């Protein structure tokens, strides 16, 4: 048997499976628990009280709660790549082999070096960092912050990639229910019987909520039997989905909710093909929040000593897990409900040391319970706790009237009353409202369609929970249009709940409000004295409520103390704004499938797999994978390959997949008129069978996109866009069609994916095409002139479209075939072109040839240039209106000193030109005042045997031949360049027309 005996496990009872012992390790020591335990309950059962060190003062901390509100018992769960910091031991399910480690201690939990921080505690007050580390400013990043981060903080992230998978899914329902306590189950029953589609989310792995610990009688059945009966009835209904281990963490507009399902967190690792967690987006017509309430601590000196525990949590450990947090228990309460812990403890055979009740009156029933149980009831408050890392030893009591008393105990149960869980209902900026009778905030201003029921609504009695839950479920179903009879609500009695509000007991020593962030009552008082009185200021100045628990156990006490010291009422003081998520959600769950190679969708061209076979190197261009170049054996780098590809095209023939260009069918009688309005030049007069280069502006007069458009029929144009703007241009054209020019009869369809399109370029292009095109087609300069566009037959029977357009300055055609023939086409081009040395080329060679030819592309069409800047001002029609026409005429857009496209080459032919280099007049010291532009595109030109480029330079076209200075502060380079004609290659265009 590994580990010691479970010293604090009751011999019977509890919702644990004693036939399934599980061994686990905490801080390297082996223990045993049972199936059905949480890590916290298993630690309790093994008598472990000290589980962590606090954030700032490194004080010893134990387990405070038994749920997701836990501020103290945070551990690093698992090891290696799966290590997860700040995991709540109170919700982590035990599994065989679980490994957990305490956090924020060195070298060990029991002997924590950083606990010396406690000696300096008087200076670690609210705002300490702001006040102390103000100067010198440069010390902050270098010295202060790293030192502070080492000393403070919680667990360590794994630091390596998470090996597990996460996914995301959508769900839809009529009625969504948060919580499976009495209110949630009653709501599910009512909604389900009404015929509604129901989703019930429960963050626990067991259903029943507080019933699991507090029991009760419902419909004359013990709570456990009622749960079973209810679940059986729900299972028989057609559309009820119950999701355990699932926390509803947020509500968003339009009835969309966020939930996190811990699908396999309860196992050492997810089974094959399964995910660790799943993020749900649940669209619900109505939502019933039956998320219960959170018992609140009372702030007193030493209230963070291990062994001080919420009264309800103590009941949970004893009843649900048969684990005893203490043997001799004291209770400090200000309300009736706390006394239930005494009953539970007595039933379990534990000793009651005393009950400290802050109320003036204690009920006769409890008085007689005290005399029967042989313990005293002290009317007063706990003012101090003696003890430390080994737990509570002695409790000091200030009696009403001034006397003092001491109580010896090894555990202190505390109940300050209950706060409804108002998170979900407040996420749309709803401000909860104060209810004096229960001294708590209850939901108000919930998002549309959301209602709270039961304890979440401030109605704590079991009978009330059932009634309210049932009514809320039935009415939610009705609102969703489901009207079957819901029958009768489950019935139970309501327990008494009376309390005298008590938030803070004065005393010597630190009294914690926010355990996780080590915020004390005196920090709150200090904040008030220093003027940070508004709760939003209080929060940020002291960091109250800003830890991973979001102040579930501390916010209300903090603002109550603020109210007291500022002389206001609690509702006047108010709450801070509540924001999702209700519990921390792993980034991995938000990312889901979208990581690594599947970070985003990928688009592949029709020749992709062929290019892979060729050994192409690919570049990501938006979503596309494009062949960048095709390396061959013996080539030492990319430049070798690209240079070869360019020379092969200029000297023979090559082809490049340009299927990534956006392609749009523009149909209809008004297609030409439509294009006239979206392009600066005219298309209505384009002859059928012809292509034309077009430029689009934005309405503000700057260039939007360019491309060629061909007229294939009287009422059919085929428009192309740049790769980058394909989707946006489609959206823009649809806007023009649907919003701006609804009177035009025009239809648009994206055909980007319908056509595989290749550019074939080089002096031997026509020779290659003759091999592949049906001999009946006339490809001569007369039969198919420059800017011709028409359908042709290919050998072997299929049809293609040919466009005689050139981006390289060479004799060139673009050929397109239906996409599923794309791969056959490249193979046939290779076959037919073998005799001409046909060479596939990638986007780099394409780029080199367009720079050599002075064509503008993305770096020049950069959202700041006008048509004239690009040297295309003459294209702008003066005979028609078009988008951007008026604004393009603005003074600044036609100013003579604008930066315009010009060619650039280093005066030293051996020099490499780099894009991004700034252009400065020769002989001047570079600075913002004399910056005249920059280099936009560069390439090594195999044709000119030197680096060349294009740039945007002030008055560039008037300065051809001028030597200027290129200043590149990023790379520390300075050199002279010559401004030149941007058309480096074949300036009169003879080659592409020949």
């Amino acid at each position, binding site marked *: 048997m590994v580990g010691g005996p479970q010293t604090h496990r009751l011999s019977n009872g509890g919702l644990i499976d004693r036939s399934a012992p599980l061994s686990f390790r905490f801080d390297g020591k082996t223990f045993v628990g049972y199936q059905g335990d949480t890590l916290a309950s298993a630690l309790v059962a093994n008598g472990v009280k000290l589980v962590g060190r606090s954030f700032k003062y490194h004080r010893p901390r134990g387990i405070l709660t038994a749920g997701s509100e836990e501020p103290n018992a945070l551990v690093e769960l698992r090891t290696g790549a799966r290590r997860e910091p700040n995991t709540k031991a109170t919700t982590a399910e035990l599994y065989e082999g679980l490994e957990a480690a305490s956090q924020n201690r060195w070298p060990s939990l029991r002997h924590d070096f950083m606990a010396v921080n406690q000696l300096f505690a008087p200076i670690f007050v609210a705002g300490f960092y702001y006040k102390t580390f103000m100067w010198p400013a440069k010390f902050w990043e270098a010295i202060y912050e790293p030192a502070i981060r080492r000393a403070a903080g919680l667990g360590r992230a794994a630091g390596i990639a998470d090996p597990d998978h996460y996914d995301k*899914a959508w769900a839809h329902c009529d009625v969504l229910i948060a919580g499976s306590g009495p209110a949630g189950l009653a709501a599910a029953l009512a909604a389900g019987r009404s015929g509604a589609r129901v989703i019930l989310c429960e963050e626990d792995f067991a259903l029943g909520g507080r019933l699991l610990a507090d029991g009760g009688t419902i419909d004359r059945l013990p709570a456990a039997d009622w749960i079973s009966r209810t679940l059986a009835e729900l299972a028989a209904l057609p559309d009820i989905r119950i999701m355990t281990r699932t926390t509803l963490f947020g509500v968003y507009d339009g009835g969309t909710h966020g939930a996190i399902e811990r699908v396999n967190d309860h196992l050492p690792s997810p089974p094959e093909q*399964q995910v660790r967690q799943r993020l749900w987006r649940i669209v619900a017509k109505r939502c019933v929040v039956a998320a219960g309430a959170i018992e609140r601590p009372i702030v007193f000196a030493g209230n963070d000593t291990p062994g001080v525990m919420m009264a309800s949590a103590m009941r949970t450990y004893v009843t649900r897990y048969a684990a005893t947090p203490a043997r001799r228990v004291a209770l400090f309460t200000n309300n009736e409900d706390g006394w239930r812990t005494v009953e539970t403890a007595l039933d379990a055979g534990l000793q009651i040391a005393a009950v400290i009740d802050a109320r003036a009156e204690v009920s006769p029933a409890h008085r007689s319970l005290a005399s029967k149980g042989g313990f005293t009831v002290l009317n007063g408050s706990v003012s101090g706790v003696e003890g430390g890392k080994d737990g509570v030893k002695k409790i000091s009591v200030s009696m009403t009237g001034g006397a003092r008393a001491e109580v010896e105990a090894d555990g202190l149960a505390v109940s300050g009353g209950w706060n409804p869980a108002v998170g979900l209902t407040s996420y749309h900026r709803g401000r909860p409202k104060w209810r004096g009778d229960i001294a708590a905030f209850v939901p108000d201003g919930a998002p549309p369609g959301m209602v709270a029921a039961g304890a979440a609504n401030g109605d704590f009695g079991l009978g009330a929970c059932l009634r309210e839950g049932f009514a809320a479920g039935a009415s939610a179903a009705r609102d969703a249009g489901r009207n079957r009879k819901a029958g009768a609500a489950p019935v139970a009695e309501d327990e008494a709940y009376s309390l005298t509000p008590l938030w803070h007991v004065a005393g010597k020593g630190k009294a914690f409000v926010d355990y996780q962030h080590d915020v004390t009552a005196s920090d709150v008082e200090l904040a008030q004295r220093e003027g940070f009185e508004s709760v939003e200021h209080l929060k940020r100045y002291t960091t109250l409520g800003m830890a991973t628990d979001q102040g579930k156990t501390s916010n209300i006490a903090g603002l109550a103390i603020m109210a007291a010291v500022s002389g206001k009422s609690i509702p006047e003081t108010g709450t801070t704004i509540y924001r999702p998520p209700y519990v921390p959600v792993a980034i991995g769950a938000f990312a889901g499938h979208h990581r690594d190679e599947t970070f*985003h969708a*990928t688009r592949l061209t029709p020749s992709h797999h062929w290019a892979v076979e060729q050994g192409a190197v690919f570049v990501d261009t938006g979503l596309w994978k494009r062949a960048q170049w095709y390396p061959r054996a013996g080539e030492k780098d990319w430049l070798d390959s690209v240079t070869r590809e360019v020379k092969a095209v200029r000297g023979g023939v090559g082809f490049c997949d340009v299927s990534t260009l956006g392609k749009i069918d523009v*149909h*209809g009688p*008004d297609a030409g008129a439509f294009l006239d309005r979206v392009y600066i030049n005219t298309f209505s007069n384009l002859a059928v069978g012809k292509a034309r280069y077009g430029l689009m502006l934005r309405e503000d007069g700057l260039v939007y996109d360019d491309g060629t458009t061909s007229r294939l029929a009287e009422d059919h144009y085929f428009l192309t866009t740049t790769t980058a703007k394909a989707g946006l241009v489609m959206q823009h054209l649809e806007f023009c069609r649907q919003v701006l020019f609804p009177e035009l009869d025009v239809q648009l369809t994206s055909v980007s994916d319908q056509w595989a399109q290749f550019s074939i370029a080089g002096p031997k292009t026509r020779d290659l095409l003759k091999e592949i095109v049906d001999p009946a087609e006339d490809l001569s300069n007369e039969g198919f002139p420059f800017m011709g566009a028409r359908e042709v037959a290919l050998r072997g029977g299929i049809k293609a479209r040919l466009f005689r357009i050139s981006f390289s300055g060479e004799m060139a055609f673009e050929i397109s075939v239906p996409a*599923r023939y794309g791969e*056959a086409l490249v193979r046939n081009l290779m076959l037919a072109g073998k005799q001409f040395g046909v060479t596939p080329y990638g986007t780099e060679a394409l780029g080199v040839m367009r720079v050599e030819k002075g064509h503008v592309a993305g770096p020049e069409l950069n959202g700041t240039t006008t048509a004239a800047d690009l040297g295309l001002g003459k294209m702008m029609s003066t005979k028609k209106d078009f988008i951007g026409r008026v604004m393009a005429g603005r003074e600044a857009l036609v100013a003579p000193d604008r930066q315009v496209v010009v060619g650039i080459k280093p005066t030293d032919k051996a020099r490499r030109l780099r894009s991004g280099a700034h252009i400065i007049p020769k002989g001047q010291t570079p600075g913002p005042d004399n910056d005249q532009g920059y280099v936009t595109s560069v390439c090594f030109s195999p044709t000119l045997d030197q680096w060349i480029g294009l740039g945007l330079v002030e008055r560039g076209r008037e300065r051809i031949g001028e030597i200027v200075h290129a200043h590149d502060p990023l790379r520390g380079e300075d050199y002279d360049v010559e401004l030149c004609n941007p058309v480096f290659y074949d300036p009169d265009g003879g080659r592409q027309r020949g």
Partner: protein
Amino acid sequence: MAEFSWEVRSPLERALVAGPYGVRGDAGVSLTEIRSFDLIQVMARRGKAADMAEAARARFGVAAPDAPKAVGTPDATLIWSGPDQFFVLSKAGKHSIEAVGSAFAGSASLSDQSHARVLTSVSGTKARAMLAKLTSIDLHQGAFPIGAAAATSMDHTSVTLWRGDDRDGQAVFNLLVFATFAESLWHTMLDAAAEYGVNIGHSDEL
């Protein structure tokens, strides 16, 4: 002179490996690519919605869908794809763009999309669970009955989704996705389905 073969290649030809995938045992999801089809986008011209409807009825014997629905005829399926437009899905050239062109002359503009999409059918006991990871559309029996259609997105990719006739008592969901996105979405679908076990195949039957 070289002899050219014009082999038609589906964008999924390499990615699709017929057989089982994911968790072993009874497959919860069947993924079948339909490889051979004609697909035409039909868009009514201005003021010609009624003429287009009339032309559709004359050609196909049924009213073209005027709402997100798919209408089956013996040799074609008409699928709503947006306001005043629909797809004609058919096979073997019966309703190819050449065959249908004259029927809609003057009333609608036609665009051939036969190569622009990949068609997949998803079925099996876990089809809805798997699709819930990909689509925000509610596919519940009551919300998405047989014949329901949607122009929507999966993984930020536009798709056309419709429910065909049940097969072996199981719902069948058909999916048209842009061809250049198809391989990427295919892998995403496999990832989504792996935990249920997948049976992968392809077919030429619509």
